């Protein structure tokens, strides 16, 4: 497959659609174990990312990913802004100069993104954050040597559910200690939208 600039645009738009549809739900999740703004933050930032990139021409996937990174970083705000921003920036760096992006390249790029977020957030899997979705997804993708959209979807879905059982130790959720258990992490949920949108795109098999 070749994961093209148009695929990235498609991925971003599908992600944004899911976020806009579930804006209030994300905010509800953040009201339970945060400060109730995650839906508002993500909706603001990803809408803007689509506006910025949509009718713009890009030569490489790295270029558009950099624009997305910068927009997300400046428009989402909160904790998730710099984290998602870092992720997209690492994706861009990882794919820099590439004219063709194959499955392995994409997987490696996502792994770089995950590591970037962990460094930035001083966090690891098991702390009830978006890392708990990214990590299993990346591990799954590395096991495969071709895109498995449905499998990816399943993994992401179950990973989000699993965040319920975790007691938060990072982010605002940490203030809720035991009480954070039983709630889905808002950032994990928004990451699920990101990956289910990606799965949709991969179903198309890229260009």
């Amino acid at each position, binding site marked *: 497959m070749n994961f093209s600039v148009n695929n990235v645009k498609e991925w971003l738009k599908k992600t944004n659609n899911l976020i806009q549809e579930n804006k*209030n739900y994300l905010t509800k999740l953040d009201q339970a174990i945060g400060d109730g703004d995650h839906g508002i933050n993500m909706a603001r930032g990803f809408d803007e990312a689509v506006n910025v990139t949509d009718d713009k021409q890009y030569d490489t996937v790295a270029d558009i990913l950099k624009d997305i990174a910068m927009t997300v970083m400046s428009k989402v705000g909160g904790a998730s802004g710099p984290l998602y921003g870092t992720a997209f920036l690492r994706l861009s760096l990882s794919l820099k100069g590439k004219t063709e992006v194959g499955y392995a390249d994409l997987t490696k790029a996502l792994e770089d993104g995950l590591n970037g977020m962990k460094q930035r957030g001083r966090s690891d899997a098991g702390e009830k954050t978006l890392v708990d979705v990214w990590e299993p997804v990346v591990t799954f993708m590395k096991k495969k040597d071709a895109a498995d959209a449905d499998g990816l979807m399943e993994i992401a879905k179950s990973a989000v559910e699993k965040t319920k059982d975790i007691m938060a130790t990072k982010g605002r959720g*940490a203030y809720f200690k035991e009480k954070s258990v039983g709630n889905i992490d808002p950032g994990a949920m928004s990451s699920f939208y990101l990956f289910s949108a990606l799965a949709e795109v991969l179903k198309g098999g890229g260009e």
Partner: protein
Amino acid sequence: MTFKRGGKAMKKIINEPTEVVQDMIAGMVLAAPHKIKQIEGTTVLARKDTPVKNKVALISGGGSGHEPAHAGYIGKGMLDAAVLGEVFTSPSVDQVYEGIKAVDSGEGVLLIIKNYTGDVLNFEMAAELAEAEGIQVAQVIVNDDVAVEDSSFTTGRRGIAGTVFVHKISGAKAEMGGTLEEVKTVAEKVVNNVRSMGMAISPCAIPAAGEPSFTLLEDEMEVGIGIHGEPGIERKAITTADEIASELVEKILNDLDIKKNEEVAVMINGLGATPEMELFIINKKVQEILAEQEIKVYQTFVGEYMTALEMGGCSVTLLKLDEELKELLSFPSDAANFLVK
């Protein structure tokens, strides 16, 4: 506007819920055009005369909704700039970066950050960008809220009203000509000696969300609550002002190593909806307790310093003082909400 989405409605005197921060900033500049300016195209408010020659610059900021924090502390002897985020949302990297560039006079910039993941990440990344541009940047992270236990494995303690003392004292040090290193050192000294705890009796609502981010029963209060409604130590039936004051002070003193005859500054901070009358009633008991423990009070501040929109409740802050801190606390300030002659 009223909001009925979901739970109970909250009324607000606003225009577009998504525009509240922009509208507020415009209103702030129009209120003091001779003292503050908005850095073009940003949500950064700064001293009119910034960058100030030969002076280390101080920047604070964070989500909006805590007014007068942080813009009310801009002024000679206190902050050079405040970076305003959306309501309860950290300002983004680029905004903080613009703020740093706007205030740096070449002497370097101190970032005063409240310990929330969002603020820490955005300010930290902005600092990296600025350093890449050759600007000296130092940071201090405020975590005075004793309702959260201090831990390096978790997010750790939150920064609340005690942050205002960090602004005041490090701002004075900078005004007196301190180097970035010196200003940072005294800021850390304040952080190490300041402790706070709050409580709430009624919630607040983010305009864009429209409904309260938490709810309390008709006779319930939450002890140890954060300034974004983060959970505290416990929810229980509301008690008397004396009992509330005693509980807050006790928790603070357990965490602040202070002996008889040592001196403190006291801040009784209203979270938004609580009348000043009730803050003074709390102050009465706080002062009585300190007197019993033979802790001397150097100065007391009662009012709204670090709010949480229209949350009902208050916080108590104690800052342990030495000669240096006393001198800096009493140093003149032009900040609208912390004037010192």
